[in-house]
């Protein structure tokens, strides 16, 4: 039996990682916070200003343990991949799965199911605090999503799964505006619009999705998956299809953040620019507010049901990428998607 290896994430600015015999030693502000045997670690991921000694880097390269550098905002910067543990094997497993219609459909179904479930949770959660009419409409949409979920369970063809995903998205965005509580006439969208977004809520969503997409891509590269070979999303040159796949389960969490920003009036009318032709974008001041809120959201801990652990929300994409890699390698019978509370 194969022992599953852990990943060490270090995101404290100024942390110092060194090789000490066959262990990695993490020092923060001059005190040793952790000394872990290297044989238990499959990868080290560092965010921002974290220092690794040359000896540690060299040892990781020799052992085939990957070291991943991310910016403090979570953008992928680079990866050290050793010669032994072939990334190529994981990528080949990914490509083979992408060629296999049954496996592709199974992964896509897990992703879509989690997206719909998470969307439904959001509708119900917001609905609880809404006025009667909104509550009813949100509850109706939630019921529709529950119905789509039931049909999804029996779906085995990718086209059917994609169709149900589209149906769920229409039901969800059809009532999205009812979750907006302030300046609804001005802010509330009439369904989802993009390229370009045509109202303030859609502009906010588009920007947040871009942040999320960068994080998902970084997470995939971090575990050595090919971000362009997706399952739910079809292959297109230049399209990070797998990053788009990974985003799906996490979109409702971001939607919730967008609603909080609007409803708490942290994002207001002056944070947007209206362009001739009807496109709406966040301006510089607006982008700053959103980035700060997004970074704070990433630090919040959420319960991860598959792991039965609390993890920072910003690490969920990394956890999912690792779970997907384990599924593709055959270590897991099914890909366990992220289900929000």
């Amino acid at each position: 039996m194969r022992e599953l290896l852990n990943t060490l994430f270090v995101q404290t600015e100024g942390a110092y990682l060194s090789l000490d015999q066959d262990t990695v030693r993490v020092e923060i502000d001059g005190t040793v916070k952790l000394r872990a045997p290297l044989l238990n670690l499959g990868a080290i991921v560092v965010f921002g200003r974290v220092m690794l000694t040359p000896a540690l880097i060299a040892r990781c390269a020799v052992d085939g343990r990957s070291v991943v550098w991310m910016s403090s905002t979570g953008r992928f910067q680079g990866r050290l991949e050793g010669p032994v543990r072939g990334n190529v094997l994981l990528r080949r497993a990914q490509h083979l799965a992408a060629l296999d219609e049954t496996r592709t459909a199974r992964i896509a179904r897990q992703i879509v199911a989690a997206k719909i479930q998470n969307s439904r949770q959001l509708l119900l959660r917001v609905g609880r605090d809404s006025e009667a009419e909104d509550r009813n409409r949100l509850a109706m949409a939630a019921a529709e999503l529950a119905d789509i979920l039931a049909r999804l369970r029996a779906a085995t063809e990718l086209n059917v799964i994609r169709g149900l995903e589209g149906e769920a998205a229409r039901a969800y965005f059809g009532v999205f505006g009812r979750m907006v509580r302030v300046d609804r006439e001005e802010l509330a969208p009439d369904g989802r619009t993009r390229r370009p977004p045509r109202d303030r809520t859609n502009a906010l969503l588009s920007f947040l999705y871009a942040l999320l997409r960068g994080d998902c891509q970084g997470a995939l590269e971090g575990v050595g998956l090919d971000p362009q070979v997706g399952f739910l999303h079809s292959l297109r040159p230049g399209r990070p299809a797998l990053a788009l796949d990974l985003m799906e389960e996490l979109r409702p969490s971001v939607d919730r953040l967008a609603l909080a920003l609007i409803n708490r009036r942290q994002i207001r009318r002056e944070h947007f620019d209206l362009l001739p032709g009807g496109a709406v974008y966040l301006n510089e001041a607006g982008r700053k507010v959103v980035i700060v809120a997004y970074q704070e959201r990433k630090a919040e801990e959420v319960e991860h049901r598959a792991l039965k652990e609390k993890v920072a929300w910003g690490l969920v994409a990394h956890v999912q990428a690792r779970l997907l890699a384990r599924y593709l390698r055959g270590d897991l019978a099914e890909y366990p998607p992220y289900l929000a509370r």
Partner: protein
Amino acid sequence: MEILVTYDVATETAEGRRRLRKVAEICQAHGQRVQKSVFECILSAAQYERLKDKLARAIDPAEDSLRFYRLAEPRERHLETMGRQIVYDLHDPLVL
């Protein structure tokens, strides 16, 4: 598998103290120090064999004593602790 390693190394002589350092060093490389001479190790069968082999060569069998306990898994269901714990569970997500 999870192995608990405990040791007792005779340190009256300089040679004994050298053996103690060596044993501690080998254990550090394979697990987490949970108490002074007690290590919890998460190992594959092969790694466990290598650990025992290294330790066997480091000790003086006439003077020192080593014990290896196989721990019941999952550990969180079979382990209770009291007092100060400065240990990371190496199964947990390691985020610093």
